[in-house]
């Protein structure tokens, strides 16, 4: 997993690239600590450059959503592609969190 973070105007966007998998668990949880900051009201995870996700990765996106919810931030997933998009659809994540295609 590669990532970059953009912040400004109370918005934090984490952009993920390559693959989100089991091995990224600790690194991803570390990224989510940013949601605890009082500076942000909205958070997004941009998936445009993410080419693949495994079962553990899907679980991490749910954890991201729950972390945002707990900290009172609005949350959305942006531009999932290919296999990532298919897995989100099969798992009906759109019924829990906004997904902006």
């Amino acid at each position: 997993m590669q990532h970059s973070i953009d912040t400004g105007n109370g918005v934090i966007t984490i952009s993920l690239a390559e693959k989100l998998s089991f091995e990224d668990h600790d690194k991803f949880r570390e990224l989510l600590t940013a949601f605890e900051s009082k500076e942000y009201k909205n958070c997004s995870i941009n998936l445009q450059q993410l080419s693949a996700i495994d079962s553990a990765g899907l679980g991490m996106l749910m954890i991201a959503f729950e972390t945002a919810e707990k900290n009172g931030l609005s949350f959305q997933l942006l531009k999932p592609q290919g296999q990532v998009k298919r897995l989100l659809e099969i798992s009906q994540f759109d019924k829990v969190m906004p997904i902006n295609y």
Partner: protein
Amino acid sequence: MPHPSDIKDGPTSNFSARERESIFSAKILVVDDSALIRELIGACLLSAGYSNIQYSQDGKEALNAVKKEVPDLIILDLEMPVMDGFEFCKALRSEPETRNVPILIQSGRDTAADITRAFEYGASDMVVKPIKKYEILARTKVHLENKLFVARLEAFHDRVASELEQARRLQLDICPTPAELNEYRQRLNLNIGWHYEPSSELGGDIGGIFPISENKVAFYIADFSGHGVAAALNTFRMQTWLASATHLYATPDKLLSKLNRFLHRNLASGSYATMMFFCLDLNKQELCYSAAGSQPPLIQDPEKSKEFQLASSHGMPLGLRANWDYTEIKIPFRENCKIMLYSDALVEVKTSDDTYLGDEGLRDEVNEIWTENLDPEEILKNLVTNFHRRLQDEEADDLTIIYLENRNKNVS
């Protein structure tokens, strides 16, 4: 005489008394054509507490000694008559039993070319003459301790490997047995194919089939997120829960809702299981099911088409949300209707054009190899063979394929 552990040049790391004993009783073979050097090295080792020292005066004699009993360390001279140290190293390294025995060279030959050659021939380490007691003892200690560390790691590895193998067998035990499947085939007039192979590292696949009555049968496929032992343990958790939920087998949506609550309470945050649970009613010739984000099943209804089609498996995976209502889907499942369930491993393999097979790829492959006169077991075998061919050297994930066909005549 001091106890070996009191000697400062002896092994001092964190070893148990038994391990320390094994180091001091390790077999050390000293090979040198000079009796004086042999005695000198032997005296050094004895003074440090090593007790099992043997001597050879040339490479050939040493080879014979090694054949009788493989030593734990060889201290070797290079220049000797009959067979020199280089040839001895080469001979030792060509045999599997002695490939890893540490060889400590002690020699007066200290040019770069000599040193390079000695290591090329398989020496582990080198000290240059004249013999310095503390140097010889320090190197001896390092090599014998290393040997013990490797032995510890090997013992640990072997124990874990054997426990994983036992766990794999336990996972195989919770699958329906061939005898059970045969009984269901005859009793319910179904054609059933079942393939399950747990990964060598264990995994989270589980599947099952339970007759509910003479005309109703439930079956399911599930896969826990993550890998390895944790995912495998969760399959047992699910099996236990399902064994106590027989009253829900005929209502897959209610079963998934309750199982979801159970798993949400018990799984670590972010962990989940995908699942499809089916109940086939042979009186109504109807398949009722509920899905929680599994792989889309392949279904063939010969009254509609000769081709297998992908059906929806959309649904929130179990354990992610505290309360979730699952939908019940009912489809006609008349005579000769077929369904194939599979775990993600089957489609997450690369095909010859370097793209993933995917659900559509699998559907096309099944339609291509499917013929009415081919036994379903044969078709499953073909799919499994293709799977292993595509995996090549990669470690296989758990693989489950379940096939079921209704052979019961439609009552008009």
